[in-house]
């Protein structure tokens, strides 16, 4: 059993939105970046994994166990950092530690205190006096202190200064280093993923558009940057495209890029290219349809 997290054909129906038949898996020892624009379904997916939101159909397994029937056993091994903090503003971090440690058998005070000391988190200061970055670090320290095997983070680096972001990313790298643990985190900051992620899962409008190892992005896709005259008749071959008056840049499958374009015009894509052009492609089609209808 190498997969620490498996999501199979999971659907959640809301009024006017649905997370539609999503499937992906996360292996031990890996960090998976979960990317998508606002409202794409990232947080809903995370909440379904934690069973905080009920799924309409499908199957979610963690550590090879069903996430509902073995909820307690599974959550004992999970560390979670939500996008919005769960702190009681007028309380202190020390009180939150006392509350949280009641539930975990493996709670490690030494580790927690070391993390707090390293991140300069005052235990007796009121939470409302904490900055956004301090709150994120505090939640991360709380999530790590019970020695989880899977970390689920919802935009953990948002609001952190560059130094703190690098610190957090280093911690995530170290966390998975023994090959037995994994990290699943959603983010908008794709440069963070370039630094640490092993896998990328892209969700758009409730559907998984891509879930692949980070190395496979450049094997599968290419960026073409060329003059607008080269685009004639090939526009529909692109996943997403941005056109200027003279030049264009677009994401395209590598085999198509090799077929249609000169090698000098082909560049290697990064995660941001994948995210932006996948979303851009659809938006462009929709906006063109609106313009035509006017």
């Amino acid at each position, binding site marked *: 059993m190498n997969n620490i997290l498996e999501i199979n054909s999971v659907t959640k129906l809301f009024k006017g939105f649905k997370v539609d038949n999503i499937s992906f898996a996360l292996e031990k020892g890996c960090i998976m970046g979960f990317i998508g624009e606002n409202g794409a379904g990232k947080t809903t997916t995370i*909440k379904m994994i*934690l*069973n*905080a939101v*009920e799924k309409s159909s499908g199957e979610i397994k963690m550590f090879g166990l069903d996430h*509902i*029937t073995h*909820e*307690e*056993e*599974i*959550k*004992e091994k*999970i*560390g*979670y950092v*939500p996008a*919005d903090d*769960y702190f*009681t*503003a*007028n*309380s*202190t971090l020390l*009180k*939150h530690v*006392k*509350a*949280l440690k*009641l*539930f*975990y058998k493996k709670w490690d005070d030494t580790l927690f205190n070391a993390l707090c000391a390293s991140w300069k988190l005052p235990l007796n200061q*009121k939470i409302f006096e904490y900055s956004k970055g301090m709150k994120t670090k505090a939640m991360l320290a709380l*999530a790590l202190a019970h020695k989880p095997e899977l970390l689920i983070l919802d935009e953990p680096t948002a609001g952190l200064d560059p130094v703190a972001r690098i610190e957090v990313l280093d911690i995530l790298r170290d966390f998975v280093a023994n090959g037995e643990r994994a990290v699943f985190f959603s983010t908008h900051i794709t440069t963070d993923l370039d630094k640490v992620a092993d896998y990328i899962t892209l969700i758009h409008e409730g559907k998984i558009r891509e879930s692949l190892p980070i190395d496979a992005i450049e094997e599968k896709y290419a960026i073409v940057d060329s003059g607008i005259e080269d685009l004639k008749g090939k526009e529909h071959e692109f996943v997403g495209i941005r056109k200027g008056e003279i030049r264009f840049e677009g994401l395209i499958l590598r085999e198509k890029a090799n077929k249609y374009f000169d090698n000098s015009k082909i560049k290697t894509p990064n995660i941001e290219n994948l995210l932006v052009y996948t979303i851009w492609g659809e938006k462009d089609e929709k906006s063109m349809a609106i313009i035509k209808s006017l």
Partner: protein
Amino acid sequence: MRKAWLLLKASRTMIGDSNRLALNIFTVLVWVFMGLTMISLTFAAIVYKANQEDIAIMGKLMIQIGGMVIGYGIARSIYTGFTEVKKDSAKSNFRVFAAQLPVTKEDIIKAQFLDILQCILPAVLMLVYMIIMTASLKTENSLSIYIGVLVAFLIVLFLMVCIEKGVFTYFFINNRVREVVYVAFAMLSALVIFVSQDFSKGVEGYLDTAHSLENTNSLYYVAQGLNFLGGIGGIVSLLLMGIIGYYLSCYIPIKIYNFREGRK
């Protein structure tokens, strides 16, 4: 049930001394007045001065303090960590905190019920004490009627909170609807406290009218009903209230969750 107790403990620990200042002052006032009521009742029992006039004064005081204690329970249940009132106004989001914990939704629902019970505990203790003392004083019916009003008030509010926190959760996702319910609770508590200024005269009036008209006046039956609730029947009613509240806020929601999630 152990996990439910732990959740309750965690919610109290997290909130710690961060309760609203107003709520803390309210807590102190409530306990002081509860103490005063109990002392005055005990004193009345010892000196055996339960004549008509004293009872009227005592009844008025009881209604006011009782309303306050019951209102306190409701206020407390609004501001505890289990509240789902929107995050910005409640400044606490225990549900998000609990999402990560190795507990099931069943534990959270049970903890929520324990939380409601804990909130109304002062009111229940005070009312049971009042009922026992009044029964032992063997006074006329009027004192029991005052207590009956409080028991009825507590039962209605408790069941409303149970419905709101339990069954309503599955039908009204919109927090605004639920906030309105809370505002209604608070206003109702305040209303009872203020209206009771002239309440004692009203009850005496009801009784006179009811006695003179005997069974022909519907107020007579209301008075008899309240008299029942203010007597030993009130203790039985409070017990029944707890059982019905358990079904509304705990048993039925758990059944719904288990049905939805395909658990046994």
